[in-house]
């Protein structure tokens, strides 16, 4: 048996496959491209981007949980193992819902994506109330919320991010939600652009995907946490539960 010949053939096949994969990935559209530099499911160390310094809301100090400085030197030296990984220790960290129980009727307000600003933090209308009910949690990447809580936040105009694939997003999404698929190659650009908008890092941001076993929203939350978004809420039930509760949805590429 000519082992050397088979090894050469096998290596040639693998090399040809790698070449084809590289060329195909280079020619692929944004939604079908993979980033080879990305490390999937790994929480990046928290670091401020130098391009657009994070703006801190002037009201952040009003919330006890956010009273610490957002100084990276402080936040990047977490005191617990859970904060090192960015993964919540328990789901029971979900904040209580002291506010009135929201109805399942169609929300009146649509969260409006804000325009980039370099002068002041972008604070969506109603985010102050939302921040009181859902205080920042800088030591954990995300806190899970349920359907009524998501509806309440939606009515307050809180930013919703859809972590599912763009094609799925276009088939139907929560009105106003932005497409932020963690599996597409431009996710880091999107999260950094969101950071660059100068949003209030203490204001709630809701991430959702397909519910069930879907972890895309959790992965997105961890990416955002790495950029000092300290109040990312994961809507565990996701889009299926949202529509199942009779809430509106929208199809197409526009939020």
């Amino acid at each position, binding site marked *: 048996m000519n082992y050397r010949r088979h090894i050469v053939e096998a290596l040639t096949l693998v090399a040809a496959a790698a070449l084809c994969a590289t060329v195909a*990935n280079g020619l692929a559209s944004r939604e*079908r491209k993979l980033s080879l530099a990305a490390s999937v499911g790994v929480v990046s160390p928290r670091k401020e981007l130098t391009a657009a310094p994070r703006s801190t809301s002037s009201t952040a100090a009003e919330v006890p949980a956010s009273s610490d400085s957002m100084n990276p030197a402080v936040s990047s030296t977490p005191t617990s193992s859970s904060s090192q990984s960015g993964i919540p220790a328990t789901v029971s960290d979900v904040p209580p819902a002291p506010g009135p129980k929201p109805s399942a009727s169609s929300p009146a307000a649509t969260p409006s994506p804000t325009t980039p600003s370099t002068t002041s933090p972008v604070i969506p209308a109603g985010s102050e109330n939302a921040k009181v009910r859902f205080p920042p949690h800088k030591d954990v990447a995300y806190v899970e919320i349920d359907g009524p809580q998501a509806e309440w936040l939606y009515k307050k105009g809180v930013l919703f991010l859809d972590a599912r694939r763009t094609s799925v997003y276009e088939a139907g999404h929560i009105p106003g939600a932005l497409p932020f698929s963690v*599996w597409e190659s431009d996710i880091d650009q999107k999260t950094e652009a969101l950071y660059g908008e100068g949003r209030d890092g203490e204001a709630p941001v809701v991430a959702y995907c397909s519910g069930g076993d879907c972890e895309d929203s959790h992965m997105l939350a961890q990416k955002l946490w790495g950029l000092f978004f300290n109040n990312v809420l994961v809507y565990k039930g996701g889009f299926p539960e949202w529509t199942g509760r009779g809430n509106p949805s929208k199809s197409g590429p526009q939020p």
Partner: protein
Amino acid sequence: MTVARFLSHPWLTIRMQLALGVIFIAAALPKIVDPPSFAHMVYNYRLLPGAAINLFALILPWIELLTGLCLALGIWKRTAVFIVAAMLIVFIAGISINLARGNAIDCGCFDVSVAARTREQRLDDMKFVIARDLGLLLMVGQLLFAEGMQREFSQGNDVSLPI
């Protein structure tokens, strides 16, 4: 001897070779068309480090496609058979480990879209996938057996699989 002759018969061998080739080509195409979805599937297996997932998801489908083409077209058949066998063993091991863990996942073998199924349905499907891959491994075994028989008849000469 009759069984051995049947198993090494060119009529059977060529059909096994073509079938395996077509199966691997069919398995590769959905993954090549939508690499991010396949990367998601690979991630769900919880076997590879994060840095290797995208690379694996990009290259594996092309290896499947090229080996499938080699089998179907009769090019570098013996090498292609070994690569297919190696891939099947890796697939069976990956599914088995997750089945043992109780981690219900979509196989991502021929379809990379996330199916709306229950945990029990996924676990049942994983058992079916293991059985199916073992069947494919038997097909590989037939090709290697036929090649060995051919070699024996040829008195040690390096002979390719019969066509």
